[in-house]
Every structure is written in C-alpha cells, then in structure tokens.
C-alpha cells in the first residue's frame, strides 16, 4: 500500500475522552475530528484505490457525500482491522513487510473518533490533495518499475454461471530466448475475470514424447494477491525456451464479484514480469515452492474445526523472503514459526489470525529483517480451519470436508519464497545485519 504523504493532525483516544470529559465549547471545537482535516487523507490513501468508480469495492468512497452514509460500517471494519483487507497480526512476529496495507493505529483511532463525534464534514473547501491513483487495469508495480518487460496472457475462457469449478491448464510460449533474472512479477486477471479466478499459477514446463509434463513454479496467484518483488542481490531465474503452463482455477458465478450468477466471458489472466538487465547475475538463487501440511490427512468434521501442521528444514542456510498460506473457505488462520534445534527456541515469524480466502496475500518480508536460518532450522507452519456456522464463508457446515482442489474442499499448504545461501554468504548477511543494527542503535542514541 502507498503510505500517505499528507499527514493530518490526529487525535488519538479522542473517542474515549469525548465520552468521559466535560469540555468547554471552544476546546471541543478545536479538537473536533473532521472529514476534511483528518479523515479524507486516510481514506484517499488507503481505501479509494478499490472504492472508486469501476473498482472492486462495493461502494465508492471518493468524497464526503459518498463516505458519510457508510461511516458506521467504515468505523466497524477499520476498528476490527477487517479493512483495509490485509490480515496480519500486529505485535507478533515480523512487522516490516513490503506491500503492507494495514492502517497505523493512530489512523484507526482517528476514524473511530470521527464517527463517534458524528462524522463531521469540516471545511470541504479545504480538502487534502486527491490521491494519484493508477488506472484500474495498470500494474501494481508500475510506479516502482514502469511497465513489465514481459506480459504473458492466458488463453481466454468463458466461465458459466453455474456448475463445477474449472481448471484450465494450457501452454503458451515464454517469449524469452535467454535466461534472465526476475525483478518482480504480478499476475493480474483482466476486468471481471477477477471475480471468477480463484488462483492462476504459472509453471516452466516441458512435455515429453508421451505427453507427460514436468514443471516448476514461475509464480503463484490467488484471489487478492498483490505480487512478488525479489530482494536485492537475488536471482530468481526466468527460464528461456520453455513452455509456460497456465494453471487457472475458475469458479462459476464468481465469488462476491460484480456479477455473481452470470456467464462471464473471455476471461484472461496476465503475467507481468519485470526483468533485471541482461548482465545482472547473482550467486544467491531464490525459488518459490509449496510447503505441505499433510493435506492428505486433513479432515474437518461437520460443525467442527481442524489444525494442520507441517515441518520443513534445509541442509544449508536460507533466507525466508515471503510467506503465503493457502486454503479455501473453511481456513481462517495461519502461522509461520521457526524452531532452532540447537537452542530449543521457537520464534514466531508471522501470525494471521483472521485469514480469508478472498485475500491471498504473500507477506513479503523487508530484506533487512527477512528470517536468516542456519542449516537445520525448522519451519513450523500451522493452519486452522473452521467448519462451523460461525464461519461466514462456510457454504455448508453439515458437510465433512477434506482435501480437494475445489473451492468447497480444502487445501493446506503455503507458498514460500526462499533464497538459498552457502555458509559464507549466510555469515556475511548476518554480519551486515549486525552492523546495520549497531549503526541504527548509535544513531538512536
């Protein structure tokens, strides 16, 4: 998320104060939280990207008249951290993330106070600057990297109004004639395809004479995902002269989309790839893989809950660059921990206790805090499932639920981007991090 540049005066805790204190009229007037002075900037910078004409948000929030009727709902969603839709627990594990849409607590407090005080407009002639928004169909990383060097579009497919989920797995040419290192990638369903594409994965593929396919991931997309940025100094290779296989899971009728229950035609998904220069190379390689949590033994009883857990380790040092849990309608939480066998210590890296299948965020750790793991350290991944009536996404709590690719079934794995290190590089990165921390401490002092 783009953090706002224009910072309004905030009034932390004002809601509580207004409930308790008797203030003079003049003081109350001075401290009043208003849309124009305090709230518009927060909404402009954090909400309007989706809540605008043609956006995926169900209502527009581009001016006071549009926002005011929704103020109580906005307050509820913001206070509960349901909006902006980036589920990731505060105060637990790594908090320095790229593409982090979460509101700062002071912004949440400001919105809450504004609604509690009556959602006052303020001086609507003195509004903060309108946000500079990308075109709805533009790429998420265009501000940073410009337009992609490579755009690979899937074949178009019609998705009917009703029926079973669809999996479209077809090949396209890669369009590259030499291997290149990837700078960033985004997968983007075009237009209404956003409402019917559950996931859209891409794979480097080879097909033998018997039609058998071998493949390795290019990148992964699931509903709501932002994209991937490779850390500095890392080469994730885009392989030339290989087929690219699209593996697109489509959901008839759409999920909460603009037109559920109707035929959605010509669905196309695009893969945008930003490449490093031809002469860029690095001895640190990165890959993206799925890490399984014993999906084959996932059984969620009717009206019941379940927990899956998986453990993974490496025989060489690694850096964990991103973490993206994957599940469907019953999954509601996930975590990543690291267990260090030499000390017996377990460290929480990420906790998502309000996970939703409609927003599959890949949590990109800032490179200077991304977990550096010695050989033998163990990733501990947990995912939780709720098949009760309390889960608002649950299509039928009376059903037994097990593993399956359908949206109605469940999955239990995580996509994790890992930079593979040798011992020398690992030690160098540790030393560099220590130096940076020491320098920061000195500067703070």
């Amino acid at each position: 998320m783009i953090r706002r540049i224009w910072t309004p005066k905030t009034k932390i805790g004002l809601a509580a104060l207004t409930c308790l204190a008797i203030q003079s009229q003049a003081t109350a007037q001075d401290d009043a939280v208003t849309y124009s002075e305090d709230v518009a900037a927060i909404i402009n910078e954090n909400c309007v990207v989706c809540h605008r004409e043609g956006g995926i948000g169900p209502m527009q929030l581009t001016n006071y008249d549009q926002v005011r009727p929704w103020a109580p709902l906005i307050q509820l969603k913001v206070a509960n951290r349901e909006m902006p839709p980036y589920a990731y627990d505060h105060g637990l594990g790594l908090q320095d993330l790229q593409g982090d849409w979460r509101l700062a607590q002071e912004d949440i407090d400001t919105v809450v106070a504004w609604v509690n005080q009556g959602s006052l407009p303020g001086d609507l002639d003195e509004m903060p600057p309108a946000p500079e928004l990308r075109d709805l169909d533009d790429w998420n990383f265009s501000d940073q990297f410009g337009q992609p060097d490579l755009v690979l579009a899937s074949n178009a497919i019609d998705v009917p109004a009703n029926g079973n989920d669809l999996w479209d797995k077809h090949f396209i040419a890669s369009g590259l004639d030499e291997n290149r290192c990837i700078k960033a990638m985004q997968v983007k369903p075009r237009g209404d395809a956003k409402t019917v594409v559950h996931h859209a994965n891409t794979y480097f593929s080879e097909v033998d004479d018997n039609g058998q396919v071998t493949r390795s991931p290019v990148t992964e997309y699931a509903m709501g995902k932002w994209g991937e940025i490779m850390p500095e100094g890392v080469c994730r290779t885009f392989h030339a002269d290989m087929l690219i296989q699209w593996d697109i899971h489509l959901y008839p009728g759409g999920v909460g989309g603009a037109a559920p229950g109707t035929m959605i035609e010509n669905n196309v998904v695009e893969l945008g790839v930003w490449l490093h220069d031809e002469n860029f190379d690095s001895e640190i390689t990165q890959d993206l893989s799925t890490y399984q949590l014993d999906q084959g033994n996932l059984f969620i009883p009717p009206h019941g809950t379940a927990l899956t857990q998986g453990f993974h380790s490496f025989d060489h040092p690694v850096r964990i660059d991103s973490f993206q849990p994957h599940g469907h309608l019953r999954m509601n939480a996930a975590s990543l921990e690291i267990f260090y066998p030499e000390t017996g210590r377990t460290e929480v890296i990420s906790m998502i206790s309000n996970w939703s299948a409609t927003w599959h965020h890949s949590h990109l750790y800032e490179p200077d805090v991304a977990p550096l793991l010695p050989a033998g350290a163990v990733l501990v991944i947990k995912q939780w499932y709720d098949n009760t009536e309390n889960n608002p996404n649950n299509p039928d709590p009376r059903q037994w639920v097990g593993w399956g690719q359908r949206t109605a079934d469940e999955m239990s794995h995580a996509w994790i981007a890992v930079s593979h290190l040798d011992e020398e590089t690992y030690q160098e990165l540790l030393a560099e991090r220590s130096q940076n921390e020491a320098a920061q401490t000195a500067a703070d002092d």
Partner: protein
Amino acid sequence: MRRVSAIMASAVIVGLANVVLVASVGAQPVERPLRPSPPAGIPVIPFHEGWYDNDDGSVTLSFGYHNRNEHPVSVPMGEQNRIEPASLGGMQPEIYYPGRHHGVFAVIIPASRVEDTTVWWYLNTANQELKVPGERGSTAYELDRNPRPQGSVQPLIGFSEGGKMGSGPEGIIADRKLRVGVNEPVTLQVWTDDPSERDRSDPRFRKPLDTRVSWYKHQGPGEVTFAAHASIDLIDTQGFSVLGLIPTPQHAMWVSEGEGPARINATFSQPGDYLIRARLDNWRASDSDGLDQCCWSNAYLRVQVQ
C-alpha cells in the same frame, strides 16, 4: 561463494517435508489422540461430493467415502449403513477400501421431491455413526457434465458394443444378472468410449489418451477375487496417487485410446447377490485430476452366485 542449486534445494525440501500433524475437533465424535493414527478401528468418513441438475428436473447426488484404515471395512446395508429417505437408498457400497474414493454411488431425487428432500447417508463403523447430507443446496457443491477446459467429459460405459451406455457417478446398472457358482470364475465385461475432444496441437494430446477401468466389489455377502482376463493385462498403477490420498486401484487396466472393452475374471466365495462396480476414468487428462469431480463413470454389474 558456492551457489546452491534450486534443484538440490528442492530435493532437500521434498526429503524433509514428510513430517506433519493434523488434529480436528468436531460435533461428530472422532477420537484423534496425539499419536500416529492406528492401522485399524478408525471410522469411515462418508462424503457428499456434490449435486447435478438433470434435464428432467431431478437431481443427482454424488457420494464417496474415505477409509483411513489400512484394510477394507465391510458394512452390510441396514441400520448401520442406510440412506434416508430409505426409498432413495440401495446403491451405497457394502465394502469400503482404504483411501479416498469419490463418486462411488449416486442418489437421484425425483423432480417432484427436489425442493423438500435432504438425503442423509448414515454409516456406522468402528462403533461410530457418521452421517452426511446431500441435497440441491449450496452452489459451492454444484457439479455439471459440461466439457472441461481441455475437453474432458464424463466417459461412456456400457456392457456391450453398441449397447446402452451411461456416464457419471450414477452411470449404468445392468438389467440382467450373470449367474455363476461359488468359486467358479466368470468374465466381467464393460464397453467404453471416451468422447472427449482435445486440442491435438497441445503436446499432451498428440495421441488420444488411454482411459482406465478399475474393478471393485460393491455389494454382496462374500469375498470377490479378481484376476486378469487373458485378453487384457492388469496395470501397475503405483505412483499415480495424489498426495497419497487417492489409492491406486488393485485391479485396473488401460483401454487403448479410450475406446473398447475391458474384461476381468472374478470368483465369488459365497452364494448370494453381488454388485460389481467398474469405474471408467480419463483421469490422466489434465482437467480430470483427483477430486476435481470430473471425469469418471460407473457401471454396476449384477452377479448371482449359487
């Protein structure tokens, strides 16, 4: 610095990825102690796969199961293995093979009863009764018979060349019974045709795909022993399991290019009425993967053993 190849890293990941734990809690009592599952004594889970709207207004419900034990579990039809309303039952299996088996049988709700009928399948194994409902309900469980994106459809299966064919989980049920003596081999035959139309320019589909027929005892009082027929070899399907979840059928054969007969010899240990299920899969097609709920068809052969 030494570069660690992605391939090596992947191999390490695979090698270390097999230590996992699953725990579940629910209203239906399922004991899941914090130790590896025992090889036996675990209740079989009944699954409702989904529902199909039919042209005549009726609805087909597809059911399957998962047997987490290492050996088959037998449950005769009756109080311990029943469909309610009882008038719609009768096709549920009496033997449950290890692993996840989807679309094993179907229940058809007549058009006149679709709106107010919920079918419940009750299955009592390991002293626990588990149940699952099926109905024309949530669209998340809606299935269809339309071609998949790469052209796969439910293949056709019947009992003779040019004869009546069926498809899907309800498939086709033999009108007449084969009659055979106890321990007397009898040849079972189905005829198959896969009408799926695929893009021949796709490197996976340059040649028509073979389909697979696998054979299961479905109902009956005694043991059924299958053996290869002289005209068709059984195949080794090891390695085709998805996540170790979909069991490899013990008695299966390819049908070359998806069209032609499949035959197997069977002997029966006890007299009585038997139902044998032949399952026709085109699951090697990319859009017929395990548990995608397409594309397979069942044929049920009746055998009376005297």
